[in-house]
């Protein structure tokens, strides 16, 4: 049990000041008051420690005792993470419900992982072998999708494998292996603890080179993100941030998904949870739940734990990365995290900068995004963390501090547009304001997986969209009639591209996910249409004829081809030019 280290001298919302009679360090975890509420030391000033408390502080009093083991707030990393839902400081919400009922009470101390459950362990290393931090000593089939690698904790020095358990069923508290280094024996269990705010070490960062295929056309074909990259998804309320996050959590081709619901709606967590226990991953045929970890610290849960939830999420992501997995972390929404920082900073009476945010906001953001990336792990495997972060700008204004600072640390930006959302063009990702700096990193992947024209098509369509933008300005001033057909066709192609390609309903049974192959075929169809149409127009064909043609209708219907019938779609695309020729007769 933790020992008493001091007493409360002041309570102000989630921030509590204590007078310490023991040495205590920044980030040490403390237990506050008679309920032993979980808190963390965030500032020291003489013998006074400022503690942010992760639970409601109602009824705490001056002179209440404060206890600590003098270790930092840490996570439990081991089998049992997948498919589970935790709060911002990794307390298991299902178990809390079973024990405490429907409402979250205070002072609950339940360990994150199930200590009784037996896992089937298979050793992968032999006694006498050299072994070092981060090495894999064995594995556990955690779900049918995930082989959980049992890692030597990074803090254990390199040595020789002194003992290892045989294949069999064990609980996570048992010693699975012992490592001898410099005459000391270190034991390794199936789980270890890791401080939530400390980056997990790796060997080196390497360049990204593969796209995260998300099944969302506007993303994969226009503004792709690489595995190991960082994206920001800013947008006013109702523009589609959460749906984008949910879609990516469902359909992207990551090995592991960590979904952090940070300061947002309770019902949205219910929604993902319910869906993930039903939906099947198109690539593996397994339930999506079998590769996902949920962190939920909704808007009505304590604000300090909201601040921690982001770190909890990224630390879990790093842990799976260390096993050599491609991990995707969704954080919805990082603005709520920044606001939690602001609120806590205010309670500590720090001097604010812009809009009340503390001066260290940019460095906190930088530290967080720095934890993404593609790396060579300590054990030599390659893993990655892709971060997809929604940003909720106040008033929908992208120049506010969180959005503008975030932009410095990400290389891909999916700007959600209010007007698109109002007209129910979803995903409302603006093709004008969004960008991806990963295009060059991943174009070889597209070349290898298609007939090699992706980058060409992409440039062609972006160019058309830019031209359309300018033409629309003219139309607004003098009407569409004055435009020559060679320009009208640009408007027509762009309209078709928006409707038949960019617009993709998350709630359409078929269109919710679109494979890379289908995307490419659809892309090709639009480009083919445009090129041929330009040609036909020169030969006197009218825009209306094109719009009323079977090919046009065929393009509008492309979305409805299921993944099983793509060869038909291919046939259609191959036949387009010929069919369009017929208009000449």
């Amino acid at each position: 049990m933790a020992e008493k280290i001091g007493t409360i001298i002041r309570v102000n919302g989630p921030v509590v000041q204590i007078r310490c009679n023991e040495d205590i360090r920044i980030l040490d975890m403390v237990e506050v008051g008679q309920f032993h509420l979980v808190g963390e030391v965030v500032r020291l000033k003489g013998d006074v420690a400022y503690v942010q408390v992760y639970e409601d502080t109602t009824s705490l009093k001056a002179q209440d005792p404060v206890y600590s083991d003098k270790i930092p707030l840490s996570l439990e990393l081991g089998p049992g993470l997948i498919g589970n839902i935790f709060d911002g400081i990794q307390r298991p919400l299902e178990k809390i419900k079973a024990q405490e009922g429907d409402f979250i009470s205070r002072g609950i101390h339940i360990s994150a992982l199930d200590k009784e459950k037996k896992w089937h362990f298979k050793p992968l290393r032999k006694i006498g072998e050299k072994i070092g931090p981060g090495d894999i000593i064995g594995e556990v089939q955690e779900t049918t999708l995930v082989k959980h690698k049992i890692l030597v904790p990074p803090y254990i020095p390199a040595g020789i494998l002194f003992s290892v358990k045989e294949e069999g069923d064990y609980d996570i508290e048992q010693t699975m292996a012992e490592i001898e280094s410099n005459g000391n024996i270190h034991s390794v269990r199936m789980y270890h603890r890791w401080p939530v705010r400390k980056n997990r070490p790796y060997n080196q960062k390497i360049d990204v080179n593969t796209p995260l295929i998300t099944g969302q056309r506007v993303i994969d074909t226009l503004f792709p993100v690489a595995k190991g990259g960082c994206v920001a998804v800013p947008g006013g309320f109702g523009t589609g941030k959460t749906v984008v996050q949910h879609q990516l959590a469902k359909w992207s081709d990551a090995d592991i998904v960590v979904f952090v619901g940070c300061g947002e709606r309770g019902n949205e967590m219910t929604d993902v949870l319910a869906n993930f226990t039903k939906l099947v991953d198109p690539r593996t045929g397994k339930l999506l739940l079998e590769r996902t970890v949920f962190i939920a610290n909704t808007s009505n849960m304590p604000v300090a734990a909201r601040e921690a939830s982001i770190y909890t999420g990224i630390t879990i992501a790093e842990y799976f990365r260390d096993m050599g997995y491609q991990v995707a972390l969704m954080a919805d929404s990082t603005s709520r995290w920044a606001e939690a920082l602001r609120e806590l900073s205010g309670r500590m009476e720090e001097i604010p900068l812009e809009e009340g945010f503390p001066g260290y906001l940019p460095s906190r953001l930088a530290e967080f995004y720095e934890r993404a990336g593609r790396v060579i792990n300590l054990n030599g495997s390659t893993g990655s963390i892709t971060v997809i972060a929604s940003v909720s700008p106040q008033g929908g204004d992208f120049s506010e501090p969180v959005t503008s600072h975030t932009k410095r640390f990400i290389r891909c930006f999916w700007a959600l547009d209010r007007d698109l959302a109002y007209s129910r063009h979803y995903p409302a990702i603006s093709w004008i304001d969004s960008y991806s700096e990963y295009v060059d990193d991943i174009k070889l992947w597209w070349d290898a997986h298609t007939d090699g024209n992706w980058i060409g098509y992409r440039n062609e369509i972006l160019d058309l969209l830019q031209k359309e933008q300018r033409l629309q300005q003219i139309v607004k001033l003098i009407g569409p009639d004055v435009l020559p057909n060679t320009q009208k066709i640009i408007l027509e192609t762009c309209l078709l591209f928006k409707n038949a390609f960019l617009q993709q309903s998350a709630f359409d049974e078929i269109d919710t996910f679109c494979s890379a192959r289908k995307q490419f075929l659809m892309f090709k169809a639009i480009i083919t249409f445009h090129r041929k149409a330009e040609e036909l127009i020169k030969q006197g064909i009218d825009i209306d004829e094109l719009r009323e043609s079977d090919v046009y209708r065929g393009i509008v219907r492309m979305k409805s081809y299921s993944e099983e019938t793509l060869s038909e779609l291919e046939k259609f695309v191959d036949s387009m030019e010929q069919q369009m020729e017929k208009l000449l007769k």
Partner: protein
Amino acid sequence: MNMYNLRQYTVLDEIAGQLFVIRNIHNVGYNEIVEITEENGKIRTGITLEVGEGYAIVQVLGGTTGLALKNCRVRFKGEPLKFGVSQQMLGRIFDGLGNPLDGLPEPIAEEKMNVNGIAINPSARDYPENIIETGISTIDVMNTLIRGQKLPFFSGSGLPHDMIAAQIVRQARVEGEGFCIVFAGMGVKYDTARFFIRSFEETGVLDNVIMFLSLADSPSLTRLMTPRFALTAAEFLAFEKDMHVLVLLTDMSNYCEALRELSTMRGEIPARKGYPGYLYSDLASIYERAGRIKNKKGSITQIPILTMPNDDITHPIPDLTGYITEGQIVLDRELHSRGIYPPISVLPSLSRLMKDNIGSGKTREDHPSLASQLFASYARTRDIKAIASIIGEEEISSLDRLYLKFGEIFETKFVNQSYNERRTLNQSLELGWDIISNLPEEELIRISQQQIKQRYRHKK
């Protein structure tokens, strides 16, 4: 009872606004109740806002007007603010702090509940389902209200939000028994309160309504507590008594003003437009009290009403509300001035829970695509209107003219309906088809061929 509960103090050290400081005290808990008895026997309630070594800062719920530094007794009760709730509260009117306003005796409490509420465990929530048919086309077809949802009205001063809310209460067809209404009026005018009472009376639901009223002249802290008392009653009825509770909260802008006022008084650093940085979390602690819980029959549906200062949807009050609620119904001054009732602007309006609760097996299979098409086509109308207003209607194409006509009919026939007109969902959907059929069928790209064949009104 603890020792300190009995401890009384006779001297306040400092009074500022609705706060006072009391020193030389010990054993006082944060966020707990304080009872202040004046010389004349008048009792006020306060809450500890901050506690420290030998002092506490207390905010006084009824305001500090008339309070003197000397000669009042202060008692620390050693527990957070609680509200004794019971089913007998139905049909009654209370002030913002749960005291009867109707002259009748205080109902006997069945249970005492913490007014601040406790967060529902996200894994205990049940996803809202079952639509509430309001009889209003723009809501039922395009922004469907779901039982357990929080769906606010973003209104402006002088717009008929109260009428629409009253119409919904009257028309909402809620199946099964155990339907009731909890009404929280924060800083509302007496007229508004009367309007609602009268309308509940006419609808014959008054016996199923609990009203909490803190009128415009009530102190700001009382306004902050009003929705909390109301929601505590709602939680009791929904989750202990299996009732379907519809909570009307009006006007949330007054609530936010009160919060700003107190924050300024405390010298806190503001975030935007003078509002405190925790406005989001504070609003969430109210709005997130809507919903359903697994294995419980009842539900809490919230319709908060707020007036957007200067009709500005980016103002922190609507903005932060929209970030928390499950959509919003936006009222529009231009429609209102053209005599269209209810003046619901469909494009910025949204129901986030609609997607999972409409369509085949739930409402009608054509519902999602018809709604989506109405949005898309009407949005196009707006663009064309903008162009036509510059270059003249004669200069636009014949297709564009069809769009303009569609837009006009949409506003006057679909959006517009009378205060007493209750359209069934079926009627509204059929009306939607009548109106969308003013556009050529090739334009309806969000609707499947098959549905067009089945329902499009072909011109003879």
